[in-house]
């Protein structure tokens, strides 16, 4: 068990998530370098193990409390699995489950954690993670010493295909911990995202606004450009959190992934969570007054002209 790499599986009860396959692909390479095997911790329906052919071992905990994702239940199951399997490295996503469970496991399992990881290297038993901080403006190279460690890996860092093998992993069952029968939280209801709004994932052209828009009134200014082009407005997280545009318009890690033919970004600095959702657009044009904004590292064209001057000029030129 000395060099095993364990991935925490995320699923919706039917499908293993792409993020899990991304992590599993990375786990296979790291486990090979560490002289161990790639394991996946699967909580809830055991039949999903059939979708995990890329793993050497699927470690399964099944219990009614794990039927749907519940932070405390998953935490109990993960604690039991870590005690039983003693992996060298645990990989999880930076999505909701990773944000719930990673740092708690660092305390409960007494292991160093690297957050927002974009690169992992293992050699001679040593693990080095490269992590993003400060909105992607700085990278930190972190040593994860000792016998155990946790890495929360940014979505899209590794290709999902490498984790989608067709093997038949050994399935190891771990007994559900007793704590699952006395949880201090319960799932009341699940709400699907509101439908009926435009679908930004199918648009050829997106006009997107970020924090630089400063106020809801100013969103109107960009809406006029969107109207002139006949395309929907999308946004980065701060604009949606402020309530200026609905959640259905959010691009990024906690929103939607888009791949339009052109993406116009106004006042978006380019935090890693946002770039995760739009970097594959065919053409990215970014407007931000900060010449050091990370958005310019993924954009094809950029400008530091003030968006409040540029947007009306564009609306005038493109209006019809």
């Amino acid at each position: 068990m000395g060099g095993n790499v364990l991935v925490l599986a995320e699923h919706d009860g039917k499908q293993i998530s792409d993020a899990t396959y991304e992590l599993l692909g990375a786990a296979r390479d790291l486990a090979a370098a560490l002289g161990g095997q790639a394991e996946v911790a699967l909580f809830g329906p055991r039949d999903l193990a059939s979708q995990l052919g890329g793993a050497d071992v699927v470690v399964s905990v099944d219990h009614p409390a794990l039927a749907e994702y519940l932070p405390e239940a998953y935490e109990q199951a993960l604690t039991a699995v870590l005690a039983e399997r003693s992996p060298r490295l645990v990989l999880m996503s930076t999505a909701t489950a990773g944000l719930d469970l990673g740092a708690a496991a660092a305390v409960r399992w007494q292991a160093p954690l690297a957050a927002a990881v974009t690169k992992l290297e293992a050699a001679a038993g040593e693990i080095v993670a490269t992590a993003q901080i400060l909105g992607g403006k700085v990278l930190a190279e972190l040593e994860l010493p000792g016998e155990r460690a946790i890495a929360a890996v940014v979505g899209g860092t590794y290709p999902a295909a490498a984790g989608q093998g067709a093997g038949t992993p050994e399935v190891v069952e771990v007994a559900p911990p007793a704590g699952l029968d006395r949880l201090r939280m319960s799932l009341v209801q699940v709400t699907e995202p509101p439908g009926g709004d435009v679908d930004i994932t199918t648009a050829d052209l997106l006009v997107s606004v970020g924090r630089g828009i400063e106020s809801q009134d100013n969103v109107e200014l960009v809406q006029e450009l969107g109207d002139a082009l006949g395309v929907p407005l999308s946004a980065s997280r701060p604009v949606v959190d402020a309530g200026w545009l609905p959640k259905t318009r959010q691009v990024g890690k906690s929103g939607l992934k888009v791949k339009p033919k052109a993406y116009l970004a106004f006042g978006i600095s380019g935090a890693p969570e946002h770039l995760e959702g739009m970097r594959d657009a065919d053409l990215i044009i970014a407007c931000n007054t900060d010449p050091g904004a990370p958005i310019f590292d993924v954009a094809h064209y950029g400008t530091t002209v003030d968006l409040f001057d540029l947007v009306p000029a564009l609306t005038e030129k493109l209006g019809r």
Partner: protein
Amino acid sequence: MRIVVLMKAVPDLVEEIELTADETGIDREFLKFVVSEWDAQALEEALLVKDAAGADVVAVGLASDPDIDQALYTALAKGADSAVKVTGGEETMLTGDRAALLAGYLAAEPADLVMTGVQAADDIDGQLPPMLAAHLGQPHVSVVVAVEAANGGVTVRQEFAGGLVHELAVQLPAVIGVQAARQAPRYAPITRIRQAMQAGGLREVTAAAATAAPAPTVRRMFRPEQASHAQMLTGSADDVATAIADLLRDRGLVKG
């Protein structure tokens, strides 16, 4: 219900970030610090709980954080009932150290509900809410977009990628990592912040830190190598607009 809202000062991302001479940290000396945006959301949501159901809201910061007084006075001006500065720790950006010290504080002055930002921009070794909850042995939920008092506990809405939401009933005490409040953080007029400052009232509490989780070792910090960089369009707004319009026309994305 006693709600403790934990506030952290983080570098203002609008500023140029400089590294220390040995390139293992951020040079904090000349940086401007602001309240972590997620902590501001957590405070707003806590004040909404107070508005709806009544609560004693305590804003808590680490005395070692730069400009934390300003953050705590602002919290008081917005409606927090009291504010505490926790002493006993060195200045640190490691979440592990912060969680250990705050666990010590909360052991001495327990909360029914701890609310804080789901993350901070300078988290290297993980996020505060789950680490703190693990020290305290309490249930915790991250990426929360609404908190309401109900049946002696709280009902929270936890958000997943794409907008799926789980509504959870959570017993107290508990720790909640807030992604966004139900409304934009309220505004505190500068006159009211000044009044809070003149009234003083930041209570200092010395805490004994719990044993922190092991931390990763920072080998070095560096700026991302830019594999590519945007071709910059310069000139007047009108010039740039013309260039962008041409780019879109060339690709057949706009008419004319």
